[in-house]
């Protein structure tokens, strides 16, 4: 663990759990923590989630026990009992989920016992230990989804053919979570599959409760959601596969192949991929002239979370034909994960391997770039980092300005874009991303 993290690009595990619950349909989160946690997280979404805050029960409407000094001395469980009882009385939801913050976990409140008492009275209620010191918001997603799968999803459900669960896209951490999940749903529909995505406008609590009937869980991330998928395997006997977030034609094709293989589908996957690719490139056809005339092929720096750093780098390299030079991962990752993720980028057809760094201090990107392209004074033949493009969060505007490159925010924080149903997954997502990249490149045209 580093001694500090610069401008952390994630919330704490409580923040991730809360954001996850806010994105679920008809769900009432109940925070057992100090009063400021809810607000801090709402402000965090406000500042980085593509202008999206809260949901059905989010922002400053989430029930919270707001424990203070007295509760810390005497314990906060009495307050929690009272809070849950009154939450059920006032708040209208199909599922109540108690999540804990640092304070109540350090003092050791027995939340589980309290919640099971209400569950035994027939209330749909779940608890998850998400104290902020446990990890970041991506981990909070895994903790809370795991607990929901354990405590809420129906056990022993009969497996339903062609039904799959999707995990790995973390609401609000990925500003494009709705569009991305819809893109994956449509992609898998090409194989005749019905994907349970949990967090889109089409999803319901009933689908969540029946998640145990899926044949397979597809984790569309090389890191996030894997623990939750393991819980589904343990508790509901559902195998899982992991895949890179499928942005653009190559990654989408790879996902279709691996899902078809995992489910042993009797279907001509290659024909589907061929048809989708033909459609994809048909859209690019009229772009050819301008793409060439404006010299829109770029060198790229990518500073992002695991999902976007891997998927965007691969898209640029495999599909769009750009040259990623530097990829900086801003997550805190152990050595084993670093190796596994590095392999995802090394496995390339064109043999282009960008410099990969794992560093939570994003302002260091300039230094890494200077190592690759040392400043060479007024040498006429200096190898300069041009034409370049910066893809990352809105905090990379500074880097982009320093090197005089256009920029696109995709990874948290996305402060400078409004996001509603936009997504970058699937074949269509590749077109959308191409539009956004090239629009930024020609913004001054």
């Amino acid at each position, binding site marked *: *663990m580093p001694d500090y993290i610069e401008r952390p690009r994630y*919330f704490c595990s409580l923040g991730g759990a809360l954001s996850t619950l806010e994105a679920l349909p008809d769900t009432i989160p109940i925070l057992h923590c100090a009063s400021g*946690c809810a607000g801090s997280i709402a*402000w965090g979404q406000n500042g980085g989630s593509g202008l999206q805050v809260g949901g059905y029960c989010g922002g400053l409407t989430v029930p919270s026990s707001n424990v203070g000094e007295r509760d810390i001395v005497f314990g906060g469980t009495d307050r929690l009992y009272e809070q849950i009882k009154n939450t059920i009385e006032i708040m209208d939801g199909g599922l109540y989920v108690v999540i804990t913050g640092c304070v109540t976990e350090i003092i050791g409140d027995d939340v589980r016992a309290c919640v099971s008492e209400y569950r035994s009275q027939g209330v749909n209620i779940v608890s998850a230990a998400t104290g902020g010191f446990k990890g970041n918001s991506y981990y909070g997603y895994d903790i809370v989804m795991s607990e929901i799968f354990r405590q809420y999803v129906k056990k022993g459900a009969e497996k339903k053919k062609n039904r799959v669960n999707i995990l790995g896209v973390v609401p609000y951490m990925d500003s494009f979570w709705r569009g991305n999940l819809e893109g994956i749903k449509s992609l898998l529909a090409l194989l005749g599959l019905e994907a349970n995505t949990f967090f889109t406008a089409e999803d319901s609590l009933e689908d969540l409760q029946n998640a145990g009937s899926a044949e397979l869980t597809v984790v569309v991330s090389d890191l996030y959601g894997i623990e939750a998928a393991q819980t589904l395997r343990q508790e509901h006997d559902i195998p899982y596969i992991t895949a890179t977030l499928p942005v653009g034609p190559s990654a989408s094709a790879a996902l279709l192949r691996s899902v078809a293989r995992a489910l042993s589908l009797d279907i001509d996957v290659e024909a589907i991929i061929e048809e989708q690719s033909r459609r994809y490139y048909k859209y690019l056809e009229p772009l050819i002239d301008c793409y060439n005339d404006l010299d829109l092929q770029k060198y790229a720096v990518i500073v992002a979370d695991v999902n976007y750093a891997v998927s965007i780098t691969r898209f640029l390299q495999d599909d769009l034909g750009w040259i990623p030079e530097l990829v900086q991962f801003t997550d805190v990752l152990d050595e084993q994960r670093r190796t596994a993720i590095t392999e995802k980028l090394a496995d390339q057809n064109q043999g282009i391997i960008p410099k990969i760094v794992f560093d939570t201090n994003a302002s260091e990107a300039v230094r890494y770039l200077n190592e690759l392209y040392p400043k060479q004074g007024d040498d006429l033949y200096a190898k300069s980092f041009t034409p370049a493009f910066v893809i990352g969060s809105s905090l990379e505007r500074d880097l982009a300005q320093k090197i005089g490159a256009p920029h696109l925010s995709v990874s948290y924080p996305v402060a400078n874009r409004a996001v509603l149903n936009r997504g970058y997954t699937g074949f269509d997502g590749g077109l959308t991303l191409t539009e956004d990249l090239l629009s930024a490149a020609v913004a001054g045209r």
Partner: protein
Amino acid sequence: MGYLDYKEAPKRESRLKACIAYGGTLCGLAKKAGCGCMDDGERSFSQGSICLMLPGLAMINSLPDNVTLLHGAVGCGVCSHSQNANVRSGGFARTGSVKDALWLSTALNEADVISGGEAKLRRAIIKADRLYRSRTITVVTGCVPGIIGDDVESVVREIQPEIAARLILVHCEGFKTKIWATAYDAVYHGLGRSVLDDPPERPSLIENEQEQIRLDYLRGRTVNLFNVSSMGRGDELELTRLLNSLDLDVNIFPVFTKPEEMYKVKYAALSISTCPTHDDYFLKYLKEEHAIPYIIKHMPIGIENTNAWLRDVAKFFGKEDVGERIIQNEQRQLELALTEYRAFFKGKTVFVSAGEFRALATAYLLHELGFDIVGIRSFHHDEFANVEYEKLQSVSEHDFTVNIANVQSYEEANLLRKLKPDLFLGHWNGNSTPSKMGIATHVIYNTGINYIGYKGAYDLARRLYKQLKNPAFNKNISKYTKLPYRESWYGENPFKYIKGGEVDA
């Protein structure tokens, strides 16, 4: 011994008897507050709000050439992502260049919770000092070090000699106080203890009497203008314009003030607060330690409030006549500009919700614009605001709802369903309840737009006109979204869950 001699600022519950639970009416509150018998209560159902760390960071993140080092779990301080927008635009408005705020987190994990976070904090300070070379590093503590008992004072004191940056310590353990206005005291406490030293003097060989006379003259006509983090540059310029017209020089403090220039606050003829909730702690310190008198009475939002605010300053400098001429002139121009809006606003009902002084001053302005006030929610209550409630009471034709609550949107939803106002003005992240009910809304502060002084009154009127002219966004949303409350809740007493506090309904 003054407060600044203590390790940290006392919480406002004890210092000012501030409270967060009351439900009733303007008259009811005035009676209680008047006889000094406000008791704070608890809620048996509560919703999340903010803690002192948010307003604290809003101030600290604005300081130029400062690194904010949060000592806590990784989520404490994520509000900085939202505040960064203000740092960028506010910095641009003041300096012409855009810069992101710089904040770091020690991101305490499970191992740190067990073994303590002091060593990690020490290493983080050293590394941050070496890497960023900032003038100041402000260490801000969250709940975790407060509970596990990290001795942050000692870490900061012991390491200061090894550090090039000046270290500032601000305590923001959220569980310690329910009154987040304690944040202002905490920040002033940190600044007051660390960065008010005079710059090193250049030794002069001969005594320069003339220079001393010049300095005394300038200081004699300089006022400290205390800004707040919810105030944009436009609002600052408006107040500066008014003070300049009294022939006064203005030293703005503390938001966006360079740490190396903060010492100037000790050399002024007068300190003027723009928000009595905000500054009393530090104004009293400046008076006691540096003999600078202060005015902390009105918030210059609204026409009469701005008049009164300016009048007090003019009076202090014996410039009553000039002050009156300025006020008359300003008011004449403003009245003319407001004519078309007044007719449009007349009789429309409005509900206001925000920090206490902001809510009350804005309500007074809305009354001046012709609105009919049907309810006010203040995020806390203390004695400074009593005079504002009295002002409203003296001009209101009827009594109206007053609710003291640290947000608690469920009480708000219940009240709004009953009162059905035409317009709602709410805090940042505090307009979703009325929006989902189809009520026209407007944010009660946003640093990019103006609210303060005469210009602010006009600009606010224009924006409210815009909202009321076409509230389709909220109207449409309300048809297809629902607030997360059971229908039965709307039939209940809105203050049902306040226990042991003050309820008059």
